[in-house]
């Protein structure tokens, strides 16, 4: 009986069994934690790089020159972002005013009106809208929308064109997230109100939507965050003159468009000023994310 284990142990000594298991386990754990750290590092890296890029302009002109200054002549030391921040907010808020209610109606349709097949088909429509590249929206806006607006109120490239294009782009975000929020509600709410004799529209308006206020608001916040950051489609239709948005037909320039337009030739402080534009944009998005977390939406991690 004693010979059996000794044979195994002798063979172990003779044959090479590859890397010891303990080492493999250790390597695995290190790789695992490194992946987690890398994900955090990616986020931190983007913010740090943004801060480093902004530092020269911020130390030269000061933050006040950016957030209070009215004029943007970066090569002459005028770094005012006020007009562009106002334009970014105007375009995004306009888009949300259109896409918010429409998106909520679309979510209600999928959840409470459509059958399985129609609901799935309409989801495909929303996904397709979300998948269309922003340059394609921009191209459509330039060739269809802008000429129509120009025939009415020249020159056509305007805040209004930006709002229309952007609201189409933001709509699927709001609709899909609001639908996810509605899905999280206990079905007893809706079924219970029907059982009490509510009509469908009344149950939705008085019971369902008020109960889903948080998630629906969070969906709108994320739609707004999307709108703030959208670059190319807006750039292609708003005209890009740096001016306060004083009429829907005025040509304006948004913060992301400003970066995209000038980054190609900007050097030194001018380049750094564009990083400050990015930082201000990021701060606006961060504020919206904070509001979204406060309202606690559907924890859709795709965002």
């Amino acid at each position, binding site marked *: 009986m004693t010979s059996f284990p000794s044979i195994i142990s002798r063979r172990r000594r003779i044959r090479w069994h590859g890397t010891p298991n303990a080492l493999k*386990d250790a390597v695995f754990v290190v790789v695992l934690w490194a992946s987690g750290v890398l994900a955090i590092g990616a986020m931190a890296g983007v913010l740090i790089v943004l801060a480093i890029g902004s530092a020269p302009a911020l130390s030269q002109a000061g933050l006040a020159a950016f957030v209070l200054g009215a004029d943007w002549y970066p090569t002459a030391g005028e770094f005012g972002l006020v007009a562009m921040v106002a334009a970014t907010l105007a375009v995004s808020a306009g888009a949300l005013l259109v896409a918010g209610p429409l998106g909520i109606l679309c979510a209600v*349709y999928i959840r409470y009106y459509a059958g399985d097949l129609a609901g799935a088909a309409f989801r495909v429509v929303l996904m397709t809208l979300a998948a*269309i*590249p*922003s340059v*394609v929206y921009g191209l459509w806006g330039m060739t269809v929308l802008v000429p129509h607006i120009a025939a009415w109120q020249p020159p056509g490239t305007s805040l209004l064109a930006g709002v229309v294009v952007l609201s189409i782009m933001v709509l699927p975000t709001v609709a899909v997230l609001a639908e996810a929020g509605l899905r999280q509600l206990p079905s007893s709410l809706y079924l219970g109100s029907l059982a009490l004799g509510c009509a469908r529209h009344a149950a939705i308006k008085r019971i369902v939507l008020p109960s889903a206020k948080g998630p629906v608001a969070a969906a709108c916040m994320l739609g707004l965050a999307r709108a703030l950051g959208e670059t190319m489609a807006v750039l292609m239709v708003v005209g890009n003159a740096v001016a306060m948005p004083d009429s829907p037909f005025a040509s304006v320039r948004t913060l992301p468009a400003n970066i995209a337009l000038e980054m190609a030739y900007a050097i030194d402080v001018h380049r750094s000023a564009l990083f400050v534009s*990015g930082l201000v944009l990021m701060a606006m998005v961060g504020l919206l994310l904070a509001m979204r977390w406060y309202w606690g939406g559907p924890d859709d991690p*795709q965002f």
Partner: protein
Amino acid sequence: MTRNFRPFANDFLVRAAVAAVVLVLAAIVLHVVTRGAALVTWEFLTTAPRSAGRAGGIAPVLVSTVAVTAVALAAALPLAVGAAVFLVEAVRPEATAARLTRGCLSVLAAVPSIVFGLAGNMIFCDWLGFGFSILAGGLTLALMILPIAACVAETTLRMHGEDRRAGYALGLPQRRIVWSIMLPAAAPGIFAGLGLGFGRAVAESAALIFTSGYVVRMPDSVFDSGRTLAVHILDLAMNVPGGDGNAFATATVLLASVAAVVALFTALDGKRGRDFI
């Protein structure tokens, strides 16, 4: 009168909103395709652009697009799978490390693409010295699609909790469970996540104009600048008078490739389609 009218009006509002959305989608796609489809010929796909893109085809643009997205997906795959396995295997869901990681990923997902462009320009083009190159553009896009791919991978990994527990019950080491059980089981979901990432990457222009650049020559290696389809459309529409025709043709190609790849990856993922948002 109003009592009977109200439900009708409310229902009508919902259906009108839906109809409007469907009509807008149809109008946009039809407009692009009717103006572009006739110009998409074999020759268009296989020749180089001439006269700044007004004439000729998009061959080098197609090659650059494939190269940039390939770099992006190849770099994002290990990062995303690593992050997802970390969240599932290394930490409890409610642990601080898990919440921090998940929070960082969700913030990363909300970062505007132009900000990725700024960061990518500084990190990859300046600091790492890649210049305007397919490599720099691809790595920037990899950062951008990391959160969406990681999220889909995590969801899929969590769906196989039973297999995972069975592995532990057999006394397998963690690395065997991850490598031999969970990753093969979750592979379809992981690839579906990459498909969504592809949709993002191939549509992107803002993050690419100053990372991969807009040189329209045929790239020789990943260190050359290359112009993707989306950037080509942007350039034709904005900077080339008379470039509209080829812009629509390129847009048709872009729409078709997004649709094809997203449909393919969704099919791989099985019956349940994923939210492409």
